[in-house]
């Protein structure tokens, strides 16, 4: 699990992505932090650790299709998923500790998002 990944998605795609994650045995309500841009648009975000292999599997629409999933249903949600990825494989434990916060804070700053509420 070397990839620090921040996921952010517009509100309208949140339930679809949470549904997909649950189907992939990742638990419920992964996208749990409500965010807001300056225009008042709502987004949801989370931070999680991924292995490269698992991440490739998640992004592989053909792979999802082979699991019997309706890819067309989830494709718009995946396309609207903003991801910020930092590979920590060569980092010391001192550095790894700091990466999630750095990744999260910088992503929100880049997208001009603020935390609205935590569920």
């Amino acid at each position, binding site marked *: *699990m*070397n990839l*620090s990944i*921040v*996921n952010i998605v517009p509100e309208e795609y949140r339930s679809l992505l949470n549904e997909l*994650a649950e189907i992939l045995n*990742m*638990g*419920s*309500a*992964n*996208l*749990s*932090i409500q965010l807001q841009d300056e225009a008042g648009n709502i987004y949801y*975000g*989370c*931070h*999680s*650790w991924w*292995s490269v292999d698992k991440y490739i599997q998640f992004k592989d629409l053909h792979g999802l299709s082979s699991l019997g999933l309706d890819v067309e249903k989830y494709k718009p949600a995946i396309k609207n998923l903003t991801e910020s990825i930092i590979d920590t*494989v*060569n980092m*010391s*434990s*001192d550095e*790894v*500790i*700091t990466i*999630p*916060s*750095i990744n*999260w*804070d910088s992503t929100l700053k880049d997208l001009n998002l603020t935390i609205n509420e*935590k*569920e």
Partner: protein
Amino acid sequence: MTISDKLLSILEIKDELKSAILEKGVDINNQTSFSEYPDKIRLISTTTVDTEAPIIESFTLNINVDNSVMFEGKVESGVNIILMNPNGETLPVTINENGSFSSYVPSPAMEGFYTLIVSDSSGNTTVEAKNLKLPVAPVNDPIVELFNEKPEGAFYDFNDLSTLFQDSAGLIPVTTVGQTIGKVLDKSGNNNHLIQPTVSRQPKLIRDEETGSYGLVWDGVDDVMYASIPKIESTSIHMFFSQRFASINNSGFQFYLSDVPMSPPVNNNRSLWLTTTYDGFYSAIWLRHFRILGNPAQRSNITSLRNVFSSKHVKPKNLVVYLNKERIQSPNATYQGFDWQNPAPVFIGLAGNGVTHKAILIGRELTDSEVSMTQDILNIDVGAW
């Protein structure tokens, strides 16, 4: 020497020169006249000599539960690599065409510096070393003994990999660093096991490179683990945790009791909340003689509130205790109580930033020597004294 001998000698020298020029990669054949040889040699002199040191793209070590070790990494393709143990003995290494390599060291692996030497055909060499320090053997017995009389509470020892699982059902053991954690067994005997079924909220296992102790790293965004407990009847609670904080820290670390599992946690109106932010240092902290009365109409009395930071890591930034969202400023004061017995359940939770090695909640009074002993054990994990 006759003229014929001299001519034969010249022909031999010409043959040797031709072979030498060919070895240097310059085209030459039997039709090339001897007068052209100087130009061919000049072509050799313009050939670029590789003076760049070979690149080590990655070189990592992973300690398995049985203290065997897997070295892995990647170097540029076509180079030779040698991996030596701390005694200078060469270890068997498997290397692929793309430069990925691995080497397995059986248990128990020798502690000390393992040296990777990478060299290319031009004789350029790059060297990198990794210091292998095996995890400190779990020193849990004295803390487990604090629960001999079956007080309420929980003891989470993240340095004891036998208590960690990747899934919240507790079916897939944790075997190495980097894996995310879905369940942590409570070693107090109270079966207050921590869980987190949602992957994005799971912390992951990390190993402190200085102390060798394992711990859970929290992302400071949405990670949280919690245990549901039927009720708390104790009127005195001790809480301890050993924690290393992230150098960039905007949310701190929380160890709490609440009536909701909270994910991410919220300092709400029905909670006991121990939180701290601390920039880049280790610490061992405890809250002592914290008395909670079992009736919301009554008020809790803080008979002693102490937090002690190790002498090694100074300048504590902040340690704050909240009871029902009210900030506790000092000991020997009274605060609004919370009926922990009604409603049930109550949740024990951990969340926030940095790395946690142990967390202990004990529902009874402790002696000074017991507190001191607990601190000593926590300090081992965080490299403090």
